[in-house]
């Protein structure tokens, strides 16, 4: 465990010094984080300004803000941690550098998942946290237990998102390019911007059970507002655990059939 922490520190320092080379990029990335949230808020406020202080599928404005906050946070997690690491798997397999990773005396899945961080996109995380705090301040009757539960559920959600991304990227052992599959993930993930209740009934079911986007943003927000059904609350960690195990098994299976680029 100590070794893993030490290696993490080395990885972090390396990506930080690489990232600081591009200072203008940081400003541009920060601008696009702010723009991103401004657009999300504009999209949201359109629903409330028109229907005369109405609701979005029964959600009040601050409640829906929670969803937007979780969405930005999840987006930040994807662009800071997942994208820079997992998109490199395909390249590493193609060019043969994956072999070096596999030879190292640390867990390969862990290593390919944490080697790079895109700190430029930290703005997304900050904006997400700011929106969440803003929403919490506007809501009445928020309980500490609800907030803690929501944090736990969101952690499970990130685990699920990681696992799905990781499995999609692992297909690179058989397919040459995976960027397009992750592109498709982004397309579907866009639906997480709004509470699931805002969609027509059949779509709600699909977003909860077929493509469980609901668990990433709606379920943690429900934990805060106290409208979470126990079934969904229990299902969330279960799904996260299953997906994580799935990603682990899939990775093992992929490695077993990997013949390396050079041998």
């Amino acid at each position: 465990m100590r070794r893993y922490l030490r290696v993490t520190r080395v990885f972090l320092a390396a990506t930080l010094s690489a990232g600081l080379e591009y200072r203008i990029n940081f400003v541009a990335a920060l601008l696009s984080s702010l723009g991103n949230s401004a657009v999300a808020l504009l999209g949201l406020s359109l629903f409330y300004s028109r229907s005369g202080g109405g609701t979005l599928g029964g959600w009040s404005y601050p409640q829906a803000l929670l969803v937007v906050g979780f969405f930005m946070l999840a987006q930040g997690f994807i662009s800071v941690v997942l994208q820079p690491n997992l998109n490199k798997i395909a390249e590493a397999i193609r060019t043969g550098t994956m072999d070096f990773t596999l030879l190292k005396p640390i867990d390969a899945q862990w290593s390919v998942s944490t080697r790079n961080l895109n700190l430029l996109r930290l703005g997304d995380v900050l904006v997400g946290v700011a929106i969440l705090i803003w929403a919490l301040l506007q809501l009445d009757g928020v309980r500490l237990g609800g907030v803690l539960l929501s944090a736990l559920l969101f952690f499970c959600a990130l685990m699920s998102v990681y696992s799905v991304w990781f499995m999609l990227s692992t297909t690179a052992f058989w397919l040459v390019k995976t960027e397009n599959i992750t592109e498709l993930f982004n397309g579907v993930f866009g639906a997480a911007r709004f509470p699931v209740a805002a969609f027509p009934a059949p779509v709600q079911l699909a977003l909860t059970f077929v493509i469980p986007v609901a668990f990433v943003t709606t379920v943690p927000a429900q934990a805060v507002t106290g409208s979470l059904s126990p079934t969904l609350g229990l299902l969330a960690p279960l799904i996260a655990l299953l997906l994580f195990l799935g990603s682990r098994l899939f990775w093992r299976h992929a490695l077993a059939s990997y013949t390396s680029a050079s041998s």
Partner: protein
Amino acid sequence: MARSRLVTPVSLVKARVLLANGFASMTAYRAEIIIWMLSGTLALVMMLIWMAQASRAAGGEIGGYNGQDFASYFLSVWVTGQLLVAWVAWELDFQIRQGTLSPQLLRPLDPLWVHYFHHLAERIVRLPFMVLLVALFAWLTGAHFSSNPLDYLIFLVLAMVGFTMRFLWEYCTGLLAFWMESSTALSELNWLLYAALGGFFAPLSFYPPLVQDIARWTPFPYMVGLPAQLLAGKATLAQASWGLLVLAGWTVAFWLLRAWMWRSGLRRYGAVGA
């Protein structure tokens, strides 16, 4: 030498060859093209939500739109958005950074045209899948489209000019790579502006008055919202011709900007050691 071919129009023969070449290379990417099509879901997500909102509202409509009207508008927005896709900023950024732009400069042809016709060719590959998907969505949602053939003709013209505008704009963004380390972060900002003011979130009349006033001076509502309204049968001929005029003005402005950026950028590029 570079100066002589700065704004040269492309000859018809070259155009035909470029288009055929683009078509051949794009058909190789048909799986990817379908995936790209499917990943542009914003208009569809907004469609579903607005339809649900309308069905819950008193009288079944919001701001003069019932569920079917929303379906028609957003499906049209989706179609228009598909016709306006441009990825040239990413390609230019890559070419300038990696130096693969250099061999292109040796050809007696402005690289702009290669990109432009490749984009057009990709539209042709996209078209059959697009029509299929729209037909499916329209059947599922009960969307209805304009019955006036003239609307479709003007739609095509508007979409063509709109695409050219978006293409030039993205081209200028990509050319920024001559001066900046990475222009792709800006490309994301571009998309946000385009999506917000173009009308991807709602018809423009739903926006706050201040935003509407700002949007009117930008090319975006005429690139997406207006052609979409034409398809949905909700725009008049007068609106369409005014929009076309504004859009043409913006396109000329960006054409000149592109020419100027290309000239001064190339001078810089040469100085770096290409």
